[in-house]
Every structure is written in structure tokens, then in C-alpha cells.
């Protein structure tokens, strides 16, 4: 043991380094959970958090917008086609135009297809129904659904039709230059030409030429066949030649959709402008505003659609990269989450609930308020599904409802994240709730009332409720009895029996409730008794009547009381015996010691040979040391048995230290050590036993004088902070200090050889005396640096009385 810490070739710097490392580790352990941010960690955390915020917000808004748009079906299909002339809507409109032109060319309504088709040419946006195909076009509605700028339409009031002008059949189409047409019918003299271009020219050639330039779409109906050219390319119109659900063009000329006889001589050329312009026309004949900008609207819609999808795609792309950044910095975001949690913890639970409710309402209210609209669209979606509202239709309806308010959706998402973060980071107890606070305060005030009052009140309530039930139950009973009397029958009797049973149960419950009033009294007595025992009454047992429900419990309590009494007596006896033993041992040691010391003294006074005189001197010295030890052991045993008498009084710790230093001035001056004393000028008032505390510091200074390195400095400091006074004595040890040794344990010393004249009890006495006075004592050793610290709570100035 000795050699372990006595080898001197250890590098002191190393020990110090180890110490510092240890301190840092301890500090880190003390602040558990608080991550030490490396430089740049703060920036990383912020960037990561912002990336997550931005990414999720963008992704949600883009996905919401996309879902909303797809669910509400605002785009002319196909969706990913950005050429408006490739849409079904365009083809339908072209088909419609062709039908109109053919009608004009034929000079009246024609059977498009063996009477299965019919149309109503009276208004724009013709509806064609066919059982087998089930196609439903509605341009007008589509145009309304999107927010395409239609320009401001001046309301045009129908002018007074003074005289019905004779009009060409194609009058409605003539001024719209988005579609150029040339209709020819009949031969020779019968030949008729309707066109909105110059009729004198060879229109076919011109239209062809135009179709290459501004007008890129060219359709020709000749000899009962339709051919279409777009730009420089001829399109395949008829496909397999059979018209079915997959056919693109609804035009005559299929094998199963032949041209009627009336149209055999009709030839139609038409060209559609690549970029339609806005066009308005007025039809006075029908007595209202009339416009036909279907192509223009369609082109604009497709254009808008393209920009919409591309924008959302770009947003999604950005969001994805943001989320990638967040994923990389994920670990470092934690401090930000903690910070946010530290703010959100103050929000009351009710406020959270309200916020969530408000957000949910905000998100879903538009959908709920327009349920008929949703229902309608749901219906339109399910149209075409065999089983009515299919799963997909329901899903689509849900998507519609959910995407109705995308900002609310985003807000809801972040609210959820905030709450989740809060629940993860903050302990349950930290959360605050108005209701809970209210409930607790109510409960606390309720608990202040004596237990019998509380029981009596709740028992009374139960009794009252049961009585009320009983009284109320009499009425249906009477009705039942009357019913059975009037209509006797087995079921009636059964019912009556059941009712009687229930009534009996009620009466029994009433009786129990009445009886429990006595129980409440017993519980009150028991509670009082428990309180009395707690307060120290070990004499009077609780006597309950023989038939009381709590008789057994009361007996158990009495047993506990008796047991406690016996244990306390035993403990008192053993404490007293312990102190008596120590006192006797001390006395029995002192008596022979007195003789030894007396005779050693007498011996020293004799005229002895030098060697004998030396022996006598040694006997005297050792006997003196034994005397000190006996006294110390006596003190320490009393302190350990909590029997050390202390006279606590208010005293000035700084003054006590000054007095101690002055008292020990002689030995200090002799020691050759330098005392560096740092005491506050103002009084440091504590409550302690001055004599015991003097002994503490006497021992500490004595210790320093005995064990400090020759010529080194001893530091005595007194500091006050936060209601505590801390006095420390620090010195550099002469010999190396062993590690892991409790210096306040008895008979422990820095130098284990035990030849230094100390009893080995100094620090132990200092420790137990400090604690007996209500202070705290500790020893810190770092390498050869020895520090003893005495801590006391300081008296507040205001407490002076």
C-alpha cells in the first residue's frame, strides 16, 4: 500500500492533465443531455432546420396543389400533353365544327349516323349522347372552372330586331378567323360555296398553304372521307376503320359510321389557327350575347396547365433537395428542436387543442359547407364505375376534401410537428393545462377538509341520488302494475318481476349508502389515529366497536403503534448504552493513563543516567499522545452517536477564522510556512457552535502545519455565494497524497507510517464537528494539493431578531 503511491518518478504534469480531463468529463456528465456544440454546430443546426421547414412546406404545397387540381379535374385530357391540338377537347370541337359545316353544306339537318346520333344545333357546346360510347363533353363548364382570363365581356343588350335580316347559314362562323373554312356542295348550277375566305380563289390550295403557316391544322372532307394534316404531317384519322371507344376522331367515314347520302356531294375544307385569338361574336337572332372562343379558351387552358404542372414540378424538385440537405444534417438539428420545445412548453394544453381545432376547421370547413358540390363531383367520378361509388371514387372524394385548403393543410402539418416535438422533448409534468390546474386547486382545497367531511358529503350525494331514483322509479312501476292488471299475461308478469328485482336492488343500495355513514365515521377515527401516531402519540390505541367494518384495520394500526413504541424504546436504550460504553471506556483508559503520566513526570524529575532520562522522556511523550487520542476518540464517538452537545449561536465566521489564526499565531510563525489569508471584510454570519468550529479550523490549520511542504504557502479563504459561506484551507502536501482515500475516515493520514505525532483523527473530528454544527465538510485532493472545505449556510440579514 505504501509503495503504491510513494514512487516519486511519476510526472506531476501528467497527474494534473488527468485531473483536468476528469474535471471536464464530470462537467459534461453533470450537464447530461446538453450537447457541447462544436463551432459551426449552431449554423449547421439552423441550416438543417430551415431546409426541413422549406422542404416540407414546398412539398406539401406542391403536392396539395397537384392533388387538388387532379381531384377536381380542371384540365382537358390528356394531362401531360402540352399541344392543345392534341387534346380530346380539340378533336371534339373540330368534330363539332365539321358537323356544323356539313349541316350547312347539306342545307339542313343531316342524319349523321343512321339516326342513332342526333344533335341540337341551336346552341354552342352540343351534347352528343351515345349509349355505347358514353362520352360527355362540356366545354362551357370547363371554361368556367379554370380561371382563364376571358377578358371583360361588355354586356351587349339585344338590339331591337326591326327587320329580320336574311342571313347566310354560315353567318355565325364568318367573322371568326380562328377557323377558316370552305364548304362546297352541289355541282354545276346547284353548286354552292360558303366560306370566310375569298370565294373566288382556289380555296383548297390556299387553305393548304395557310395550314403550313399560321394555320397549322388542316381538315378536308371530300367524297365522304376525312383527311387531316397537321403541319406537314398527315394524321391517321380512321385507325382500324371501326369506330369504338378508342377512336380519336368522331367524324363520319368509319366502316360502322358511314356518311349519309345527303353529304355525298359536300366538300369541306377547314383550317385551324395554331395560336387562336380571342374572338367574340354577337347573334342577334337568338336574342343574346354569343361568343365562341372555344379554341382560344382551350389553348389558354392547356398553356396554363403546362405552366402549372411545370411550376409544381420545380417546387417539388427544390423541396426534394431541401429534404436531402435536412437528411444530411439531421443529427445536428436536435438543438433547434430543443429550443423550440422550450418555447412551446409554455403553451397551455387548451390553447393547443383550440389551435388544432381551428386548423382542422379551416382545412375542412369549405368542403363541409359545400358537401353537395363534393357529392356531385363524387357522383360524376363514380359515373362509369359499375358499382356506383367505388373505392377509387371515394378516395378521390377524400383527396378533394383534403386538398380543398392547402395552406390549412400545411399549417396542420406544422402544428402536428410542433406538438410531436413538444411531446418528445418535454416531460409530461412540464406541460401546463388550465383545466388540470383548476382541477388540482379544487382537489387541493377539497383535500384540506377533514376526511369525514369529504366522505359525508360524497355519501350524502349518493344517498340523495339513490333516493331520487327510487322516487322516480315508483311512477313507471305504477304504470307497469296497471298494465299487468289490465292485460294479464306471462310477459307482463315477467316484466313486473324484473322491475321488482330492480326495485329491491335499489332499496338494498339505499340501505348500504345509509350504513356507510357509520363507516365514514370509523374512517375519520382511523385517519385521526394515523395522524396522531405520526405526530408521535404511541400511547393511546384506537378502540372501534366490535361490529365495525374497520375493526380489523384499527387492530392492525394498534399493533403497528405498539411495535413502534417497542422499537423506539429499544433504540433509545441502545443509544444510551452506546454513549455510556464510550464514556466508561474513556474513563477506564484515563485512569491508568493518569498514573503513567504522573509517574513519567516524577521519573523525569529524578536524577537519572542520560539513557534512562531519554526513556522517561519518550514514555512521557507517548503517554501525552495517548491522552490526546483518548480525548479525540471520546469526542468523535459522541459525535457519531449524535450525542455531541452543541450550543448553536449566531457568529461571524470571518471573525472566528481571524481569532483562530491569532490564537495559533505562535505555531504558524514557527512553522516557516506562509499563510495567504483571504477573508471578507464584512461579517459572514452563520449559526454554529463557536467552540466546536474553532476546533475544526484548529485541526485544519494544525493539519496544514504538520503535513505541508516546508516553506510552501497555505491558502485560507472564505467565500460567500448564494446563501452559503465556504471556508477552505489549501496546502501542498509534503509527501505524495494517496489517491482514492477518504481523509475524513478515522485513523487515516496522508503518510501511513503513523510516526508524525498526529492521532489520525483531526480531519475526522473536523468533519463530524462541522456536521454536528449543521455544516458540510469535504476534502479535495489534486496531485499534491490538499484542500479541506467547510461549508455553512449563511444567515440572511433580514433574519436578525
Amino acid at each position: 500500500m505504501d509503495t503504491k503511491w510513494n514512487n516519486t518518478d511519476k510526472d506531476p504534469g501528467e497527474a494534473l492533465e488527468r485531473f483536468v480531463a476528469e474535471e471536464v468529463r464530470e462537467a459534461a456528465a453533470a450537464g447530461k443531455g446538453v450537447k457541447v456544440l462544436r463551432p459551426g454546430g449552431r449554423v449547421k443546426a439552423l441550416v438543417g432546420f430551415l431546409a426541413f421547414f422549406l422542404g416540407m412546406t414546398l412539398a406539401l404545397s406542391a403536392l396539395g396543389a397537384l392533388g387538388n387540381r387532379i381531384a377536381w379535374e380542371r384540365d382537358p385530357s390528356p394531362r401531360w400533353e402540352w399541344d392543345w391540338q392534341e387534346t380530346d377537347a380539340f378533336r371534339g370541337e373540330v368534330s363539332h365544327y365539321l358537323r356544323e359545316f356539313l349541316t350547312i353544306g347539306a342545307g339542313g339537318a343531316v342524319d349523321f349516323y343512321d339516326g342513332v346520333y342526333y344533335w341540337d344545333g341551336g346552341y354552342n357546346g352540343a351534347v352528343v349522347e351515345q349509349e355505347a360510347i358514353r362520352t360527355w363533353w362540356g366545354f362551357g363548364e370547363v371554361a368556367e372552372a379554370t380561371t382563364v382570363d376571358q377578358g371583360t365581356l361588355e354586356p351587349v343588350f339585344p338590339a331591337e330586331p326591326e327587320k329580320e335580316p336574311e342571313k347566310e347559314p354560315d353567318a355565325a362562323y364568318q367573322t371568326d378567323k380562328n377557323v377558316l373554312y370552305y364548304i362546297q356542295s352541289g355541282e354545276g348550277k346547284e353548286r354552292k360555296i360558303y366560306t370566310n375566305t375569298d370565294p373566288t380563289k382556289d380555296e383548297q390550295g390556299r387553305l393548304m398553304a395557310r395550314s403550313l403557316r399560321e394555320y397549322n391544322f388542316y381538315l378536308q372532307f371530300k367524297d365522304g372521307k376525312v383527311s387531316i394534316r397537321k403541319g406537314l404531317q398527315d394524321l391517321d384519322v380512321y385507325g382500324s376503320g371501326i369506330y369504338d371507344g378508342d377512336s380519336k376522331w368522331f367524324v363520319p367515314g368509319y366502316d360502322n359510321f358511314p356518311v349519309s347520302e345527303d353529304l355525298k356531294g359536300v366538300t369541306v375544307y377547314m383550317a385551324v389557327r395554331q395560336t387562336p385569338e380571342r374572338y367574340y361574336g354577337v347573334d342577334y337572332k337568338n336574342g343574346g350575347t354569343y361568343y365562341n372562343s372555344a379554341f382560344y379558351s382551350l389553348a389558354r387552358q392547356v398553356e396554363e396547365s403546362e405552366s402549372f404542372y411545370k411550376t409544381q414540378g420545380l417546387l417539388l424538385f427544390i423541396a426534394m433537395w431541401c429534404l436531402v440537405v435536412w437528411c444530411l444534417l439531421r443529427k445536428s438539428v436536435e438543438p433547434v428542436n430543443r429550443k423550440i420545445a422550450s418555447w412551446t412548453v409554455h403553451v397551455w394544453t387548451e390553447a393547443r387543442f383550440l389551435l388544432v381545432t381551428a386548423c382542422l376547421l379551416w382545412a375542412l370547413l369549405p368542403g363541409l359547407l359545400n358537401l353537395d358540390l363534393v357529392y356531385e363531383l363524387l357522383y360524376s367520378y363514380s359515373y362509369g364505375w359499375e358499382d356506383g361509388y367505388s373505392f377509387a371514387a371515394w378516395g378521390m372524394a377524400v383527396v378533394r376534401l383534403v386538398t380543398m385548403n392547402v395552406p390549412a393543410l400545411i399549417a396542420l402539418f406544422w402544428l402536428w410537428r410542433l406538438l410531436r416535438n413538444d411531446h418528445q422533448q418535454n416531460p409530461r409534468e412540464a406541460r401546463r393545462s388550465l383545466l388540470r390546474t383548476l382541477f388540482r386547486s379544487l382537489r387541493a382545497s377539497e383535500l384540506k377538509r377533514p376526511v369525514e367531511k369529504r366522505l359525508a358529503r360524497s355519501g350524502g350525494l349518493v344517498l340523495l341520488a339513490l333516493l331520487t331514483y327510487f322516487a322516480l322509479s315508483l311512477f313507471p312501476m305504477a304504470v307497469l302494475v296497471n298494465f299487468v292488471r289490465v292485460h294479464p299475461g306471462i310477459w307482463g308478469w315477467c316484466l313486473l318481476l324484473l322491475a321488482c328485482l330492480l326495485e329491491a336492488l335499489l332499496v338494498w343500495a339505499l340501505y348500504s349508502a345509509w350504513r356507510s355513514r357509520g363507516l365514514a365515521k370509523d374512517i375519520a377515527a382511523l385517519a385521526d389515529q394515523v395522524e396522531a401516531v405520526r405526530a408521535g402519540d404511541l400511547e393511546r390505541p384506537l378502540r372501534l366497536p366490535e361490529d365495525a367494518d374497520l375493526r380489523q384495520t384499527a387492530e392492525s394500526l394498534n399493533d403497528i403503534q405498539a411495535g413502534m413504541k417497542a422499537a423506539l424504546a429499544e433504540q433509545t436504550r441502545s443509544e444510551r448504552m452506546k454513549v455510556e460504553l464510550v464514556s466508561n471506556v474513556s474513563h477506564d483508559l484515563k485512569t491508568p493513563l493518569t498514573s503513567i503520566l504522573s509517574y513519567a513526570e516524577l521519573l523525569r524529575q529524578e536524577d537519572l543516567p542520560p539513557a534512562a532520562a531519554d526513556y522517561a522522556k519518550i514514555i512521557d511523550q507517548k503517554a501525552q499522545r495517548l491522552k490526546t487520542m483518548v480525548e479525540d476518540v471520546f469526542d468523535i464517538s459522541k459525535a457519531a452517536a449524535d450525542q455531541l452537545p452543541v450550543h448553536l449561536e449566531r457568529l461571524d465566521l470571518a471573525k472566528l477564522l481571524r481569532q483562530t489564526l491569532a490564537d495559533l499565531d505562535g505555531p504558524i510563525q514557527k512553522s516557516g510556512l506562509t499563510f495567504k489569508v483571504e477573508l471578507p471584510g464584512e461579517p459572514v454570519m452563520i449559526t454554529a457552535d463557536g467552540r466546536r468550529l474553532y476546533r475544526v479550523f484548529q485541526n485544519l490549520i494544525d493539519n496544514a502545519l504538520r503535513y505541508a511542504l516546508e516553506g510552501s504557502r497555505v491558502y485560507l479563504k472564505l467565500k460567500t455565494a448564494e446563501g452559503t459561506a465556504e471556508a477552505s484551507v489549501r496546502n501542498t502536501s509534503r509527501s505524495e497524497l494517496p489517491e482514492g482515500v477518504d481523509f475524513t475516515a478515522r485513523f487515516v493520514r496522508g503518510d501511513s507510517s503513523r510516526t508524525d505525532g498526529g492521532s489520525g483523527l483531526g480531519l475526522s473530528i473536523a468533519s463530524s464537528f462541522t456536521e454536528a454544527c449543521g455544516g458540510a465538510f469535504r476534502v479535495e485532493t489534486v496531485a499534491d494539493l490538499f484542500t479541506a472545505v467547510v461549508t455553512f449556510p449563511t444567515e440572511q440579514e433580514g433574519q436578525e431578531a
Partner: protein
Amino acid sequence: MNECILVVDDDPEIVNAIAITLEREGYPVRRAYDGLQAVDECLDPAVKLILIDVMMPRLDGLSALLRIREKRNLPVIVLSAKSEDTDKILGLSMGADDYVTKPYNPQELIARVRSQLRRYTSLGDVHAEGRQGLLVNGRLSYDPAGRILRADGDEVKLTPTESKIVDLLFHHPGQIFPAEEIYRRVWNEDAFSCENTVMVHIRRIREKIELNPKEPDYIKVVWGIGYKMEQHG
């Protein structure tokens, strides 16, 4: 002719050791080994002082003390291994004139014996007369007019500063004076870190008046508060 001293202890070796010490100082010694013997022995008028142990067979020291007090008026020094304050107070309140704890210091014991004898013999007159203005405190007496301090009747030589401190403390027995207060009153200056200075003077006074300067009976430190003069009967 010195006064005869009765030494009572159940341990004959201790009695013997004390006897030798006292005889070397010229005091004739009588010996007793329990309380009853002590009561018998003290009837001899030659006995002028009793040194008595507490824990003894047959009759313990304090009971014996009570019986002795019924018969004789002479100084009694209790010699006990019980060192606690309560034991000391008990001993003194039962009529002991002094209380010495075992293991005792022979020099101190002799000093205490001598002091008690002097107070009971030569000083008896002084006490009886109760000279005007004389402040008496146990074995000390102080004459404020002449600023003369006597211990066991012998005048104690004091420096002017020491004399001022003694004057202050004697006028206010039992009152606690912080070092600053003493300094201000004695040196007539405001004090700043005067603890050492005051302590040095007090230590010197103690060496002159106390029987055991390390465990003073009169000028005591009240730790953390100040200094005071303990009043003795």
C-alpha cells in the same frame, strides 16, 4: 509550616504520585482511598485542603463532598476523569472550589492547590472586609482606583495596554467584546484587522493571571464573536 492536604482516590498509585508531587513542594499529605475514609480523615483540623476523585467505591466523591461540607469549611478540588462540561458544572455546583480533569498536569495541579490555599488563608481577610470599590472575581481582585490587579493576593505586573484591557473587562464581567471594540476603547483608534494585536495582549495577560494559560478560566474567547471575562464566585 505548610498546610496538610488530604488526597482521596481509589487508585493508590495516583494517590501516591500526587502525594510525592505535593510533598516535594513541601505540603504534608494525608491519604484516603474511598469516600468514607475521606469523610473520617477530614475531621482532623490539620487538613486544610482536599483533593478528591469522583468515582470511588463505598461513597463517591461528590457525596463525600456534601458530607465534608456539613462539617468543615475548607477548599476542595475535585479530580475526575469525567471531562465533560456537565460533569464540571455538577461538581462545582455541589460545592467544589475547583475541578481538575484527569490526566492532570502536575504543575497545574500544584498551582491550583496553592491558589486555593492562599485564597482560604491569607486572602480570607480581604474577602471578609470587602474593601470599597474592589472588584473580586474568583482568585483575582482588581482595584480600579489604583489599577492594581492581584492574583491570589499577589500583585500582577501589567503593561499600560494590558492594564487598560483588564480594566475594561473587569468592569463588564460576562460581557462579550469584539476585538474591534477592545481596540477602539484601549487604543482609542478605529480598528482594522486588529485581531492579532488584541490576541497577543490577551495571551500575555493570560500568562500572567491564568493557572493554565492554554485552558484559561478567566479571559475567554467567544469564538466568532469576541472576548469576555468569565465571572467566578
